[in-house]
């Protein structure tokens, strides 16, 4: 199937140039890597450009950066307390990177980085690695208290503890699959409705009139996808904060 009809074709990773191969592993600069670099360049460029003046009375552009800072800082303070502020750089980077790469993926001919499972799994494993590493380093053996909710009779604990362990183990899975699934499903749905427009207009005059309906649906879905892109970046960040709270204060 061609590019116009196959909804999964848009996620193909295309080689841009190759650095050669080492031990059979191809070192290739792909469109995925290019889009990640573009996202990082946009975030860094935006933040450097808007905070260059550093006016005491912020300009309008500077205000956008300050609101983003305040939004994330407030989120960390409410969910983990002021101790969590040492993770501010991590959470802020995660939020801006996911937000910008989600939104960039919605533009035509752009490649959606966050609809690649390997990217979201890497982000989720980074978060869970930090949670486990910091939790053990800070609390030592007490970190295991996250599996034992307080105030529960001993008999019930036999059932609750395996459930808590299972729930902890499924966190990286659900964290990565949620972002991946939302972005993938959204892109596929928009593509399917756009495909209806193409196939209807090929049917003549009646088809062209009928194609207004899927076209309107495509426009509406694109608007919805902008909402989902921002919401999923927010969800990933808030879950990161909740998991970090477990590492900082184990035991419910």
């Amino acid at each position, binding site marked *: 199937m061609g590019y116009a009809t196959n909804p999964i074709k848009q996620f193909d990773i295309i080689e841009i140039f190759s650095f050669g191969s080492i031990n059979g592993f191809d070192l290739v600069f792909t469109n995925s890597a290019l889009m990640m670099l573009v996202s990082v360049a946009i975030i860094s460029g935006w933040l450097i450009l808007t905070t260059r003046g550093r006016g005491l009375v912020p300009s309008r552009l500077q205000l956008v950066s300050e609101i983003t800072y305040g939004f994330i800082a407030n989120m960390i303070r409410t*969910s983990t307390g002021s101790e969590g502020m040492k993770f501010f750089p991590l959470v802020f980077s995660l939020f801006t990177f996911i937000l910008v790469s989600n939104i960039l993926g919605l533009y035509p001919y752009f490649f959606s980085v966050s609809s690649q499972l390997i990217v979201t799994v890497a982000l989720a494993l980074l978060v869970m690695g930090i949670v486990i590493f910091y939790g053990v380093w800070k609390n030592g053996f007490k970190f295991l208290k996250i599996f034992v909710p307080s105030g529960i009779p001993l008999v019930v604990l036999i059932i609750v503890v395996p459930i808590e362990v299972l729930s902890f183990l499924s966190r990286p899975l659900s964290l990565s*699959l949620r972002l991946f699934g939302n972005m993938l499903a959204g892109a596929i749905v928009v593509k399917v409705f756009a495909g209806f427009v193409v196939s209807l207009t090929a049917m003549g005059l009646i088809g062209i009139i009928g194609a207004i309906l899927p076209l309107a649906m495509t426009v509406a879905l694109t608007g919805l996808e902008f909402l989902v892109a921002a919401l999923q970046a927010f*969800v990933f960040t*808030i879950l990161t904060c909740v998991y970090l709270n477990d590492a900082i204060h184990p035991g419910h």
Partner: protein
Amino acid sequence: MEVEAAKMIGAGIATIGMGGAGIGVGIIFGNYLSGALRNPAAAGQFTNLIFGFAVTEALGIFSLLIALLLLFVV
């Protein structure tokens, strides 16, 4: 039955699971709205609302993933 047809039917059945997630997300937002409209002071629970939404929605995404795996990978 042909394997290709069985894959298509299986993918269709797998997406039924998303309906359950839809019901769950609807209950969460509906209860939030009714609670927030009765007592506007309770509207500050937006973070918990999004947290519950995310946890519920993940299960729907799992079934969507099974459908996509059946269609394009297996």
